């Protein structure tokens, strides 16, 4: 059975709440992650939230290339080619 599509925007909001106690309202695909005011440690925790929930591992050398929420979506889509990933 096909797995349900992944909604990166919704998951991102959930992760921000969980790891950094932040409520993000105006999140879009082109939102630059560093502009959200989270420090890099929190961003790393957020990435591991996605990895854990989706059971994937983003290679370390890809991590530094992720600037926007859309970049995160693209990276996850590459790791899960059989699943719809939207942002």
């Amino acid at each position, binding site marked *: 059975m096909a797995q349900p599509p992944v909604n990166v925007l919704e998951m991102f909001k959930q992760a921000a709440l969980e*790891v950094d106690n932040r409520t993000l309202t105006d999140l879009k695909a082109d939102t630059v992650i560093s502009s959200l005011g989270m420090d890099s*440690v929190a961003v790393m925790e957020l990435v591991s939230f996605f990895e854990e929930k989706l059971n994937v591992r983003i290679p370390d050398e890809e991590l530094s290339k992720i600037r926007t929420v859309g970049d995160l979506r693209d990276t996850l889509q590459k790791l899960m080619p059989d699943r719809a990933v939207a942002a």
Partner: protein
Amino acid sequence: MGSTKADIAVSYDVSNEFFRLWLDERMNYTCGIFDEGPERMKLGVPGPVSLEESQLRKLRILSDYAHVTSASTVLDIGCGWGADLEYQATTNHVKAAHGITLSEAQCAEIRRRALPNVTASVCSYLDYRPEVKFDAIISICMMEHIVSPQEARDGKSIAAYRNYFRLAHEWTKPGAYFGLQTILRNFVPRDRKDIQDLGWVTYEIFPGGIVPRLEEIIAAVNPYFEVLELKTRRLDYRNTTWHWRDRLRKNEAHIRATWGDKVFDDYERYLSTCVTGFEKHYTSLAQYSLKRID
């Protein structure tokens, strides 16, 4: 530009007496070499090789990697409190050794030791312009200060490391060798506590710097140096930091009374993070013998 002079003061100028309490007697603030075989190294408590002996072994290896003889003039980039300079002067009996550090407190300690044929200055490698060229270079865990976390995220690491090797090339004679040691960033932890601890060490204990990745160093040496030998020493650094934490704990009451609870608690957390980081492969250590490409 990596760690500034003010950043370096945070890392190294707590007090020379404080560091003397938990480092080895010559105050090496880098990985020693125990070489006790994989079984021994895995045990919780390190084997019979003392911290003092491990540091001498390290200095012997790096001197060999740099082909140091009594006829050599040696530059130590990021010389700390002068343990290697002391080794060059009193064991290798070199013709001359010069050290640069960004820490005033460290330079004061080196001058206090009044070592034969040794000079030292407070100077960044970026500003250093030696009058004569050296036969050999040793640099022990200084590259960790060259690039800031933000610069690393912006993709500037390799260019900055290459500039360091370019300068080292400029400061040496044809035929020179370079004994290099660096910590390595192997992979980013995913465990939440480990992410926070490693992030905290990076930002609070060693502000302005980030540990290099092996592939960055390998890319950056060219076209200035050739890697002749390379050996990783992850468990040796695990044992070194274990010894440091053990000595720190044995001096807990004195440290709390003299420098306050925060200093003790911070250093205990930092050293525990290091022990875990080496055990879990987040970080490792590498020693390199480099030959100048003439």
